[in-house]
């Protein structure tokens, strides 16, 4: 509360951090993932055996590591936002770079996972479980790449001094998107990799 009170723009309490436009996008994306998850749950209920069998073949360790990586990156992003709210653009830039680097760790681990599946000859058409596994993880994977592009742009702008304690909507916008990507993975990982 104190922080908000000391915030220069305390008078204008905002409903959502960042630009409203990104929230329309975020809602749309959450809707897509939401429908996808429901479709997964429904189909799984129809084919419990199949799903349980092939779930065993997924690399749960890499999935778990990636979960930690993404949560860590979200923490970096939170720190970046906190930094710019203090007006510390340099710190903000560094936290964002760390977040992008964690994102790229996720990407490397994920690519290794895809490569292993590819080497086994597994595709979208192998069976319904792999269809969902590959569709969901690849769709999410593209979101991670997109998020990294956004955070990189924001980091570059922060480095060039485009943001300050008063005006930093861009940082909050990028952060909101990245948290969405993280949130989706936090649901996706247990749902597809773990839950029996």
């Amino acid at each position, binding site marked *: 509360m104190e922080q908000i009170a000391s915030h220069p723009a305390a008078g204008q309490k905002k409903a959502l951090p*960042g630009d409203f436009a990104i929230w329309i*996008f975020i809602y749309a994306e959450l809707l897509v993932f939401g429908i996808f998850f429901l479709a997964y749950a429904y189909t799984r209920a129809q084919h419990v055996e199949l799903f349980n069998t092939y779930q065993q073949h997924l690399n749960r360790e890499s999935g778990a590591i990636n979960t930690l990586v993404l949560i860590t990156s979200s923490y970096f992003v939170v720190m970046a936002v906190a930094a710019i709210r203090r007006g510390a653009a340099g710190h903000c830039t560094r936290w964002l770079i760390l977040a992008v680097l964690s994102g790229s760790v996720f990407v490397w681990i994920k690519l290794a996972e895809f490569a292993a599946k590819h080497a086994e000859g597994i595709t979208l058409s192998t069976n319904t479980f792999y269809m969902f596994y590959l569709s969901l993880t690849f769709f999410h994977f593209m979101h991670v790449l997109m998020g990294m592009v*956004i955070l990189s742009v924001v980091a570059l702008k922060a480095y060039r001094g485009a943001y300050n304690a008063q005006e930093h909507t861009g940082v909050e916008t990028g952060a909101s998107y990245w948290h969405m990507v993280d949130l989706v993975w936090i649901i996706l990982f247990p749902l597809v990799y773990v839950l029996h």
Partner: protein
Amino acid sequence: MSEVFTKSMARNIYYGGSVFFILLFLALTFDTSSEVPKRDNHEAITEQVALGKKVWEENDCIGCHTLLGEGAYFAPELGNVYKRFGNSTDAIVGFIKSRPVEGIPGRRSMPQFNLSDEELQAVAEFLKYTSEIDTSNWPPNIQG
């Protein structure tokens, strides 16, 4: 309460979102192109089938019929007509050949296209080929 909603962010979402989904669509297309040969019955494509497709197109059959559900809805589905006609290309040839020039009074009628025997055989073979494409079990029954 003042919400920030800028035109430049809306623009970024338009361009970024479009590029994102175009890339995703291309990725799925790429996968499709490697998967389609397992389902498309391309082994059955012969010179005769190619001629059959040409006859099919140059008489605008799609202007009345559907083929795998696409086309006009004036006349029966032909994607499975080979099977509906008892797995017989002769039956298809016989049907096309016997259409009355002046039509059937009061009823829908297929025109008499005056196709040569070669063309008739070819279009029948073309329809045999399409009936063996893996369409995920569509149409729901033999009536199309």
